[in-house]
Each structure stands twice: as structure tokens, then as C-alpha cells.
């Protein structure tokens, strides 16, 4: 066997490294690249099997985008999702932040157990609960309204957020609040005036992640909402951008791009904090 010197070894290692990264980047990123190409390709070019699909054989066009914005309910869906997202995040914050704090600080042994129980509820899937929930939603008169999902979504954003926030709160030293209480604040005041401001980055992480959970959801929205005008983006785009059996691929891919990239940016920004919260307990 040829003995490679350290320098040659390092060089071939770098080659393999680069090849691996390239392969995975292509595999994972290709659909998005494909969305970009499809969104701007003219119909005749797009549906012509003789043309090279990877390049623009005719001039790119904005026609699909125009169609998307002017002749479909896409903007409506974006608005619905944004509206639902904001409200769901608000409900989540109001309920999860105090709960996470209480479970971290105030209930000793039980706190840990309830925390685990809450985490387990996150593992209960929508595809198990959606059938009974469809009944409950009908009972509340919320079927086919955006409110159905606004009410139901916190059922998974809250457990997730509590679990995330418990990680953050655990890392804040107790002495801080103890000092504040010695100085005269009540515990709740210490919580509001001290702990919450310190945890802004944790809370922001919860906001971003809860919002992405809302945008990613499919089953409940599909089940509870039946008319196109009330739908969210996650369901509207794959289900309603079609006439009969034929999809409007150009506009559809454009819609997909718009629905994925912004979330991608926000998520990437906060990922490191999420990982810190996730691994606080699992790995020492």
C-alpha cells in the first residue's frame, strides 16, 4: 500500500469532504432549485419534452407569478396563515412562558414530572386526534373557519414551547430572583421584571419555532377547513392550485418558493439557540 505523507492524506481527505457536501447539498436542495426554474419558465418551454429542462430555452417569464397573485387565493392563504400564526404565537406565549417558569422553579420534584408529561403530549400525533377533534370543532361551531386551527394549534405549540423554555429557564441562576425578592419584589414581579427580559432570546426562539410549526401544519387544517378561501398556505397550495386533474405547476412552484424560503431564513437564525435548549438535558 502506498504510504501517503500527511499532506497528500490531507488533500484527499478534503476532496472526499467536498464531494460529500456537494452530494448532500444537491440531494437536499434540488427540489428548491427546481421550484425556482419552474416558476419562471414559460409554459411552452416547461411542457416541451424535447427541451433541456435545466436551462431556460425561452426567455423567463413572470406570468406564473402574476397568475398566482392575481387569479388564485394565494395571497388570501398567506394572510390567513399570518393571522393564525400571530394569534397562535400570542396564545402560546401567554400560556407557555409562565407555565415553563413555574415548572422549572416552583414545583420541585413534581415540576420535572409534569414537564416530562407535557413533553409526551407533544408526541401524541395529530393523525390520532384529528378525528375526535373534528367533532369537537363542529360542536364549537368552528368548522370551516380559521378559528378552528387558531384554537387547536396551541395544543402542540404549547408543549413544545414549555419544553424549550424549561431549558432556558434552568440555565438562569436562582440567585438572581432570590436577590430580587430579598430586595422586596414578589416572585411574580421578579418573574416579570427580571426573568422575562433576560430570556428574550429564548422567547424569541419560541416565537420563531411556534410560528414555523403553524406554517408547517397540514392535517388539522385539511380536516377542519373545507372552503378554499379560509385555508392556510400549507393546505391551499398543494390542494387548490389545480383545475380538475391538472396542476398549475408554474404558479404552484412559485407558491412553494414563497412559502418556504422566508421561514428557512428565520429558522436558520435561531437554530443554535434551539439546539442549546434541546441538548441541555440529553448530553452533558
Amino acid at each position, binding site marked *: 500500500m502506498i504510504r501517503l505523507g500527511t499532506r497528500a492524506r490531507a488533500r484527499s481527505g478534503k476532496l472526499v469532504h467536498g464531494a460529500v457536501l456537494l452530494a448532500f447539498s444537491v440531494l437536499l436542495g434540488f427540489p428548491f432549485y427546481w421550484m425556482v426554474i419552474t416558476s419562471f419558465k414559460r409554459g411552452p418551454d416547461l411542457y416541451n419534452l424535447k427541451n433541456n429542462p435545466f436551462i431556460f430555452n425561452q426567455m423567463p417569464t413572470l406570468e406564473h407569478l402574476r397568475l398566482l397573485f392575481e387569479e388564485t387565493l394565494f395571497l388570501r392563504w398567506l394572510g390567513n396563515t399570518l393571522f393564525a400564526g400571530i394569534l397562535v404565537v400570542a396564545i402560546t406565549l401567554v400560556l407557555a412562558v*409562565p407555565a415553563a417558569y*413555574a415548572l422549572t422553579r416552583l414545583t420541585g420534584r413534581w415540576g420535572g414530572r409534569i414537564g416530562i408529561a407535557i413533553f409526551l403530549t407533544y408526541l401524541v400525533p395529530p393523525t*390520532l386526534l384529528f378525528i375526535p377533534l*373534528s367533532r369537537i370543532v363542529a360542536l364549537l361551531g368552528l368548522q370551516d373557519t380559521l378559528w378552528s386551527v387558531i384554537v387547536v394549534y396551541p395544543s402542540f405549540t404549547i408543549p413544545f414551547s414549555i419544553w424549550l423554555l424549561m431549558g432556558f429557564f434552568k440555565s438562569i441562576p436562582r440567585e438572581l430572583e432570590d436577590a430580587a425578592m430579598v430586595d422586596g419584589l414578589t416572585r411574580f414581579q421578579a418573574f416579570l421584571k427580571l426573568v422575562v427580559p433576560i430570556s428574550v432570546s429564548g422567547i424569541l426562539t419560541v416565537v420563531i419555532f411556534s410560528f414555523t410549526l403553524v406554517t408547517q401544519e397540514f392535517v388539522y387544517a385539511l380536516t377542519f377547513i373545507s372552503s378554499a378561501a379560509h385555508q392556510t398556505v400549507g393546505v391551499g397550495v398543494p390542494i387548490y392550485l389545480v383545475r380538475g386533474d391538472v396542476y398549475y405547476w408554474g404558479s404552484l412552484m412559485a407558491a*412553494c418558493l414563497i412559502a418556504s424560503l422566508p421561514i428557512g431564513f428565520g429558522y436558520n437564525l435561531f437554530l443554535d439557540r434551539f439546539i442549546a435548549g434541546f441538548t441541555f438535558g*440529553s448530553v452533558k
Partner: protein
Amino acid sequence: MSLGRQRWLGPAMFLPAVLYVVALVGVPFVLAFLYSVGDVKVGSVGYHFVGLANFKSVLQNPTFLRALRNSFVFTISSQILVLVGANILALALKSAFPGRRFVRFLILLPWVAPVSIGAIGWKWILDSLYSVINWVLIRAHLVNEFSPPMWLGEPALAMMSVILVHTWHMLPFATVIILAGWTAIPKDIPEAASVDGARFFRRLFQIELPMMLPIINVAVLFGVIFTFTDMTVVYILTRGGPYDTTQVLPSLAFFAGILGSDLAEGAAISLFLVPVLAIAAWLMLRTAHRAEVT
């Protein structure tokens, strides 16, 4: 520790959240059991207990058995691919290199984008007429121009496509978790192994991966739960077709319970998810507990 006077503060702060979750998770959970042993249909009033009749009829349905088998096949196949892929990718992402942030952004997209969006994107790539994959295969003379593979139209290929999309969607999540596990290994342990004479692969398989086992377990268990209980990929890619050959438990439950309006049957089907969930959750708790002790 609660202060003597304000004992009520703790419960006051967490009860609203707990009650909300109990109402929207606990209650439907119990209802699912009740429906499965009843004869509830959409629009029906009242409730009749029918024992295990729903389960019996469901178990005799060949479509259900097929869906049950598919659920396991899809989940196990995609998770094996994810496990291997995520470890390789995490290894590649471990060291700093120029453009790392951008690569990480790109690699995360399949997980961050709504799974329905990713699925419909793949549907276009796998389209029966216009699939770009087929275009490449035809040009490379690997397939016949007049009978290209019907990625979503032939049962075996459709199953592979579903597994592919699940793998594509879950890979980033597993990679991120495993990467976190890598960075948690103290720097001097691989160095000690190096000095002790272990080269790359021995270090990897005998020292580094075993140390990461708890966190790999967690990643796999999450992946199993998310994949096993997912209906979106199947619904969007194939609607369970061709001819119910790619149905899985959750999608079948949807078709029966919601589209078919038979809530009881739907509930019964979806309850078969519970044993797998329970085992996965128990394993996860055990692993997390063991990891904390170390």
C-alpha cells in the same frame, strides 16, 4: 422551591397551559378510544357501544393490512437511510469550512419548509410525463423513451418515492441533532484515541459513535414517531394510490374517518398508532434518563 405564602402561584402559572393541553389532547385521546368501540358517524347523534366490532372489521380489510405493513416498511426504510445519511453529513459539517452557514441553510430547507410544500415539489419532479429525473434517464439511455418509470404510478416505485420523500424531509433534523452530539464530545477523547493508535474508522466506530449513542437514539425515535404518524407525504404524493398500495395507517384513517365520514372506523384505524408511539416514548425516556446519568 415555593415560598410558604405564595403556594398558589406555581399552579396558577402552569394550570392554564396544562388545562388547555388536557382539553385539546387528553380529551380527544380518550374520545378516540370511545369512538373506536362505538358506532359514531359524522352527523350521528347519540352513542352505541359495539365492543371490538370496528377492530374486527378493520383487521379483516386487506387494505388495512396493507397500510399497516406499509407504515412499518416506510418508517424503517426511511429511518435507516436517514441514520446513515445524517451521520455522514454531520461528520462533513463538523469542521468549519468556508460557506458553512450557507450549506447549513440549504441543508435545513427540506425540514423547515412545510412538508406538504416539499411533497408537492417532489410530485412535480416525479411527474408521470414531465419528470426531470426521467428526462435525464432517457438522455442517458438508461430507460426507454416510451415507457419511462412511473414514479408515482407503479406500486413498487410509488413506495420507493414515498420513502425517498420521507428520508429527504427528515434528514436535516437528524443531522442537526447528531451534529450537536458530535460537538458535545470532549476534544481530548478523540485525541487520546489517536495517540492510543486508533485511526479514523476505528476512532469513529469504537469511540465516537458509541459515545453518541444516546443522542442518536433520541434522533431515531423522534424520526420514527414523526414518520410513522405522518399522512401528508402519502396524501399529497399518491393519495394512497395506485389503488391503495401506498396507504399508511394515518392516511387510511383520514380517508375512512373524514372523507368516508365513518368516525368510528377512522378512530379504530388510527389507534393502531398507539402501541408504536408508546414503545417509542418509553425508549426515549429510558435513553434520556441514561444519558443524564453519565
